[in-house]
């Protein structure tokens, strides 16, 4: 099979690490070869962060390049647009609708481009936008945004629901399993 790419992006500190861990687990359990690439360091301090996940029969490069991603999963609205060029034709953007102002916006040097996702939709990009923060809070913790987004990914993905649940059980600490299952379910069942 052709190697597939998934991009997970957001703002440093939003917890994208658990999302890529869960996704990695699901894919490894399915027997795929996989590579996950993230850059540590400066990115932690509220900067823009990105993780690449690639899977297939044999994966060489650890990075996803323009037009190669089947999914772009974003924890923040404009980060989805920042990395939209990575999406392949027919790919899907799954994004949290949360807005986090970057410093140039905070200090008034730039505008927050609120309408950018509409522009991408108008250009024919499929975007699934959801208030993952609200759903996470409904599940019991604002920190579960990552799992809500993974739930929504699962809805559009070829791997069965049960296998995701099994991977959650293998990935998160026992006392958080129920909360994360709930968050996953809410993300999975969300539709506009």
């Amino acid at each position, binding site marked *: 099979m052709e190697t597939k790419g998934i991009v997970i992006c957001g703002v440093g500190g939003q917890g994208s690490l658990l999302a890529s861990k869960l996704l990695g687990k699901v894919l490894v359990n399915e027997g795929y070869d996989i590579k996950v690439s993230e850059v540590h360091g400066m990115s932690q301090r*509220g900067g823009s962060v990105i993780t690449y996940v690639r899977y297939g029969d044999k994966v060489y490069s650890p990075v996803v390049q323009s037009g190669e991603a089947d999914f772009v999963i974003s924890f923040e609205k404009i980060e989805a647009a920042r990395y939209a060029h990575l999406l392949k034709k027919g790919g899907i953007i799954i994004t949290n609708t949360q807005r986090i102002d970057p410093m140039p916006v905070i200090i008034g040097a730039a505008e927050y481009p609120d309408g950018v996702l509409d522009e991408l939709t108008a250009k024919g990009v499929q975007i699934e936008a959801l208030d993952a923060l609200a759903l996470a809070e409904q599940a019991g913790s604002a920190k579960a945004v990552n799992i809500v987004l993974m739930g929504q990914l699962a809805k559009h993905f070829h791997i069965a629901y049960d296998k995701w649940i099994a991977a959650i059980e293998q990935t998160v600490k026992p006392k958080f399993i129920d909360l994360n299952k709930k968050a996953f379910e809410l993300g999975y069942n969300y539709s506009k």
Partner: protein
Amino acid sequence: MKELMIGNAAVARGLYEAGVEVISSYPGTPSTEITEFAATYDDIYCEWAPNEKVAMEAAFGASLRGVRSACAMKHVGLNVAADPLFTLSYTGVTGGLVVCVADDPGMHSSQNEQDSRHYAIAAKVPMLEPADSAECKEFAKLAFDISEQFDTPCLLRMCTRIAHAQSVVELGERTVPEKKPYEKNPQKFIMAPANAIRRHPFVEERTKKLTEYAETSPVNRVEMGDTRIGIIATGACYQYCKEVFGEGASILKIGMVNPLPVQKIKDFAASVEKLYVVEELDGVIESHCNNIGVKVIGKELFGPLGEFSQKSIAQAFGLPVKETVTADTQIPVRPPVMCSGCPHRGMFYVLSKNKITVLGDIGCYTLGSAAPLTALDSTLCMGASISGLHGFAKAAQGEADHNTVCVIGDSTFMHSGMTGLANIAYNGSKATVIILDNSITGMTGHQQNPTTGYNIKGDPATKINLEALCHSLGINRVRVVDPYNLEETEKAVKEELAADEASVIISRRPCVLLKYVKPRKPVMVDPDKCKSCKRCMKLGCPSIRIKDGKANIDTTLCVGCGVCEQLCPFDAIGHEEQTMAELPPAQCVAQ
């Protein structure tokens, strides 16, 4: 058992399986996790040294005593440790010694893009370069065998995309080689001229033997495909080329980047029509090919800058790249910023407000160079703030004494700031040095250091007293301030700048991300009192934003440090029930 591991964790696993007993390192992205993961194995003694030179020398001592040892550092760290490396090449080892060094093409988190392969060539030591996590583990083990077989330290070169990419690793068992008894051997280990003169021919001979090894070792392997295109590649570049060409090109994958084989390259060149060298940063393999009379295409096509990828390589070969959609709307950049409540912020606000020239250093506080604080004038390398300020002050002949300071973090001060301070005292400049003591090595992800009172395992350790240290380095004026208290901080800066002698201000408050630092209640803005003067916005705290024309605080991010509260002239910002007096004292550093 198979596991998905980042390259650095796989290196740590390789060190473990190879039976390494002592690891001494200094943190630096993208090398840090090697030592952090190694420290999770109880069988290995691991430590954070104050700097890379100390780390490498500790590894040398362990090797001398007969055990396998290692150290890890980022590329610029090898500049600091270059001194021991060059002579270690002459002494060789007793127990195997492996030096892991991580380059950062693309400068994701570094101040330059230097290529550490030059060190292997200059110091005449072997260097291996893995291309995925499985190789990280295997090469770490092989490096010890090479080290012991050829009596040399062995370098293991990592790059960001290998160090921080996860791929599958098969785990093995740990085997510890028998400890060699200690024997005094002055001819080998006392590198005074008489002995060193005899060791130099050994080094040259060793390079010949290593080159023979490179000719036949499976670490340099040929993968024949279409012979119209031949490619020599290493590390991540090998992966990018495979991604682009698959079987559509023949590849000589180099796993040992120094010394490079000669015959193997010549044979490969003869078996393909056109030969390319795909290597990030400098044309090291390309130069080697030129030297041995093999014609290659390299830097003229790919250039020396930044990280490559399957896309950049496809483009260089004139192959089509994938279609994509982008937004026309401008997306504002999102640079990293100091955290909400970062203790560095108060000091930078004071320096910025008083328009003071600030020679900076490397750490989280380098982020103080960004708007709106724009508080820094320079950042060169670790330690250069203090030594640089001395030279700046001397050149200014008194004109900088009352308007110029330097800032340096606690970890950086221990790394290479102390000697600069000694120079200030000894050669008498009237410099004002500010140590930003947040009780941690923040930038690289919170490692302990000699000023924090804890070791790498989090166990209590001797805590170096910065005040006493500065005093004994010859500085009479040493004072401690709490950067959360702007009035006190401003007073200290003004008084020390006015003083007619050198001084040190220790700006002390722990990093807010430390577990023992409990955030206080967030502050709030009373919209009726806020007059939209935007003075609080001068701090660049990511929790403060403007909503409907008034300042507004994101209470999910604010840690209640109270600094913005002190700036508001209309008393519009405040804690509901806490006051400044309830702040824990500045000395609340964990004991």
